[in-house]
């Protein structure tokens, strides 16, 4: 295999990103100082349970956080350009053109009063500068590309005439219409049935290869990341607990949270063993303590874990983990 140097370089780099929700005087920090990068042509999975901040993280990158939330600090570098330095309009133009996003609930993501085709045509005209007349033909092609049968008639149908899976395909077509360098998929299959989920994941994989895009896939389902992601970020309470290649995360996890998470899911094959749940429940982000956010639920936690946030320890060129225990391991 020929190693493409360009492929190894980062498409997107995020540094020290912090986002919080404000309700009057109370501040709820959903994203607490996150660094990560997306390489060209990879599928990066971001895994986390509800409240881990994974969805807020990507919305912060795109600058589409809800009105009661604010990105406090952080640097986002896309293809060598710092996004902060750009004007409001330039920032807006990055969305769609460079980074496209698909969402969790395909049922509500399309304007009910606009035809499927109009959603695409609008984008083709605005982002790609295609003439309106030709745009319709292109829209049909896009629908065909995402596997919608008889796209010639479907293009003139309204969202309510599509099933959930088909709507998600329309949204993927919208993303493709922009020819983005990066596609962010926020729980794209959570609202869908397993058989439809398998179809959509297959489609994403195929499109990523054909278009040579980078994909960031956000999900709570470890099965989904294992199926299509090459690299994984494990998030908990607004922080990255562990980061590594898929094999590293699944076969030699370093962080107790990653380990616990893997232990708590049932196996599809082999012997039935008793599940090992994680004790307690997710921490409130309203009043976070001083220490490691997972300390309360961690079976290996010791005093230091409650008073100090651990630094990252690097295990390989690709794997790092935020835990004191790992520190010991590295030293030894």
């Amino acid at each position: 295999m020929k190693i493409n140097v360009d492929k190894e370089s980062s498409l997107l780099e995020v540094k020290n990103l912090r986002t919080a929700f404000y309700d009057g005087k109370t501040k709820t920090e959903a994203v607490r100082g996150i660094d990560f990068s997306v390489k060209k042509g990879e599928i990066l999975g971001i895994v986390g349970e509800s409240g881990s901040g994974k969805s807020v993280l990507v919305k912060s990158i795109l600058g589409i956080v809800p009105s009661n939330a604010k990105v406090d600090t952080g640097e986002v570098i896309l293809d060598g350009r710092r996004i902060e330095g750009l004007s409001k309009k330039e920032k807006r133009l990055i969305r769609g053109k460079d980074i496209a996003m698909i969402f969790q609930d395909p049922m509500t993501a399309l304007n009910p009063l606009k035809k499927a085709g109009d959603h695409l045509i609008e984008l083709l005209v605005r982002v790609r500068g295609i003439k309106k007349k030709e745009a319709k033909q292109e829209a049909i092609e896009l629908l065909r590309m995402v596997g919608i049968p008889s796209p010639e008639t479907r293009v003139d149908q309204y969202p309510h005439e599509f099933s959930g899976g088909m709507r998600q395909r329309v949204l993927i077509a919208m993303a493709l219409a922009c020819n983005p360098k990066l596609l962010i998929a926020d729980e794209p299959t959570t609202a869908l049935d397993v058989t439809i989920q398998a179809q959509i994941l297959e489609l994403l994989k195929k499109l990523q290869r054909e278009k040579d895009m980078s994909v960031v896939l956000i999900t709570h389902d470890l099965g989904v990341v294992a199926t299509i992601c090459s690299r994984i970020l494990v998030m908990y309470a607004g922080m990255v607990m562990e980061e590594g290649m898929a094999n590293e995360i699944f076969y030699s996890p370093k962080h107790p949270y990653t380990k616990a998470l893997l232990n708590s899911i049932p196996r599809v094959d082999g012997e039935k063993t008793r599940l090992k749940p994680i004790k307690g429940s997710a921490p409130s982000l309203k009043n976070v303590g001083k220490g490691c956010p997972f300390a309360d639920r961690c079976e290996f936690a010791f005093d230091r874990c409650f008073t100090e946030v651990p630094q990252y320890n690097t295990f390989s060129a690709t794997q790092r983990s935020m835990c004191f225990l790992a520190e010991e391991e590295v030293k030894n």
Partner: protein
Amino acid sequence: MFKYIFKRIMQAIPMLVIISIICFGLIQLAPYDAVDAMTTPNMSEKTVELIKARYGLDQPAYMQYFYWVKGILSGEWGYSIVTHESISKDLSVRIPNTIILVLPAYFIALVLSVILGLIAGARKGKLADKIIDGLSSFGIAIPSFWMAMVLIFIFGYQLNLFPILGMHTIGSEGSFSDLFIHLVLPTTVLTLSFMPELVRYVRSSTIGQLSEDYVMVQQAYGAPSIGILFNHVLRNVLLPVITIVGMSLPMLVTGAVVTETVFGWPGIGTYFVKSIQGFDYPIIMAIMLLSSSLVIIGNLLSDILYCIVDPRIKGMGE
């Protein structure tokens, strides 16, 4: 879609029948005899009998009801007890007068409300919203007659800019500019009294739509906020407004009762109030029947309109 419209029409018919029965029942209950409206005290007993027979007033109630419905359908609405004038003739003069007043006021109010409501909704929590929303919640609390009195005092008594009574200056009945000058104050009052609720409706509907997922999706694809507002949100906001417009049909008759009374406008409102004060039952019932039928027809129209405009309903039942 046609199936749905047909169904909807079939639903409206029994409603109209029930309303007509209620009106008829109230007439029967009323402490007067319908024949009084058509007779004068110096008519002979026999003439009265003849008239009774002619109008079917000697028949049992349900037969009278059919005669009555037949009369109404053929434009025969009975006579005033007080003036002995034909009600349908009166109405044909009064209704246009009310429409001249209400229609422009409603139209202006609608356009302004959509604009203001959109601005307020889009700038939720900002200064523009605070002003618009604050004024409209105050506006809802202002009785229209009081607003009319204030305007009359300022523009009529103090500044002497506009006439404060009636529709024409005596002697210049045909003049359009004269009519226009008379229209200014009552139209302003009506516009201002229609607006607050419409503004609040459009505002909350805009806020609701802006929090929909599809708006976030459009943002994620870099659509400018103005573009999202006009290309996407506006349609969704205007759609329910259609319903309101349809349901406002009866306003053409009863929308200005109080305002007309204050300004002495010779429309349905003053006619109605006068008939109430004079216990002129046939007129009261005629107006009640007319306005309720308009409500039902208005609802029907708005449903049909909705059904034509909304693709989600269009597809149903096929």
